């Protein structure tokens, strides 16, 4: 286990050290101490290493992650795991707005609540939230899965393309072109797999599925102002 004191050594040293780990590195376990809400912690990682951040983080923690597993032992500020490609990001506390935005792949697990715009423009990422998500979550979602074990705020899935949204609790309102959909066996399989991998407490059959009505795909004069 490598312990990195962020306050003593600074952010540039941290990220260049972590980004410098090759695919076959022997230094696979890292712990970052004195995070103190700093921004851009552990961004752009490309090796299959395991990083634990002690304390809460600021903006854009674990952004652009590929291969690595980043665990935040606290809460995460805006844009955690933004544009993640692969790997996993686990937030033990809450996540601020636009968690997992534009993510292409990998798994983002939020053990607490996520604020507004969780999974905005998601492009293949899997996001599992043990608590609630705020308004405009999965706005313009293109692909991937968003699993919400609690409730969803206003305008869930507004202008959604193709992505699976699963909510166990209530949905305050659905956004434009987002509708409730039938839960078929393959969806229960997706849920089962994500629940198992993320370690949240839930059963697949407790969820309702939402997705695109596909009415905004083509230009329709009735949608114009």
């Amino acid at each position: 286990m490598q312990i990195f004191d962020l306050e003593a050594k600074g952010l540039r040293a941290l990220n260049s050290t972590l980004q410098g780990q090759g695919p076959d590195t022997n230094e696979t376990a890292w712990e970052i101490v004195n995070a103190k809400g700093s921004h851009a912690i552990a961004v752009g990682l490309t090796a299959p290493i395991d990083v634990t951040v002690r304390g809460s983080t600021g903006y854009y923690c674990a952004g652009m992650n590929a291969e690595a597993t980043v665990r935040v032992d606290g809460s995460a500020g805006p844009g955690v795991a933004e544009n993640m490609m692969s790997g996993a990001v686990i937030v033990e506390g809450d996540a601020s707005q636009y968690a997992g935005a534009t993510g292409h792949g990998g798994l983002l697990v939020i053990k607490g609540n996520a604020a507004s715009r969780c999974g905005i423009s998601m492009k293949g990422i899997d996001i599992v939230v043990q608590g609630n998500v705020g308004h405009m979550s999965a706005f313009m979602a293109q692909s991937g899965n968003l699993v919400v074990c609690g409730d969803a705020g206003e305008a869930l899935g507004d202008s959604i393309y193709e992505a699976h949204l699963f909510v166990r609790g209530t949905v305050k309102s659905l956004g434009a072109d987002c509708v409730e959909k039938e839960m078929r066996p393959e969806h229960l399989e997706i849920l089962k797999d994500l629940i198992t991998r993320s370690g949240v407490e839930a059963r697949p059959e407790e969820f309702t599925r939402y997705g695109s009505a596909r009415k905004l795909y083509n230009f329709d004069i009735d949608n114009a102002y």
Partner: protein
Amino acid sequence: MCGIVGLFLKDKALQPELGRMLTDMLITMSDRGPDSAGIAIYGAAEAGRAKLTIQAHDPDMIFTGLANELRDELDVDISLRVKDTHAVIDLPESKLQAARAALKKLRPAARVMSAGEVMEIYKEVGLPGDVAARFDIPKLEGSHGIGHTRMATESAVTTLGAHPFSTGADQCLVHNGSLSNHNSLRRKLAREGVGVESENDSEVAAAYLSWKMQEGSTLAEALESGLDDLDGFYTFVVGTKDGFGVVRDPIACKPAVMAETDQYVAFGSEYRALVNLPGIEDARVWEPEPATVYFWKH
């Protein structure tokens, strides 16, 4: 972008530390707002007394002899404490309005930053650390206070464009965001007889709240009406004589983090601002909900 910090002390033992703690939080928010900074601090009330904080571009010329002239004019016991470009005038509460009128006559160039029983507002152009040092903010004691670091977007970098803005006796407002209907609202307020001094959007929000309260609303009701009447992005923190409040617009893209322990309630634009507070590791930390008015009172 701007930075907001706020601290409401439940534990009286921390009151001598208020200025130091707020200054530390304010400096952490320097990169969110390096243009200007300001702080409103709520000290101890003294029965029957009030405070008028004034600001001058040329402190020597404006403040010299002012206490004596006000004393002659109002025929009451007045003291004046100069702090850099600001001065705090201590006077009988019953003479507050008369003193404002006298000040206008004696020193038309002086600007009133705040008036009330307990609140003092200090604000200037410059880095938050420099501004805090000029006014010796770390030494200030009190029950609660709010601070602001400004990155100017809607109007020029000037002392008058700095936050906090006073919204009434012992009341002030700081703002992170930008209002898009401030010009039409400014015209509407002018028709109601409410004037603002600068081109700043946040000052219009402050004037709007003052106007609503003059019309009979409570501060909480004024903030609720603001959700309908103010168009744009905002996280507001407001200070009152005995507490502070927080409200975010319904879109809530301007950041806000709160922390509460048995000793205090704290506000920061980012968690970074809160990390040095005592017991923060075990505090309840959360994000205020959009379009929801929060209040804490002593």
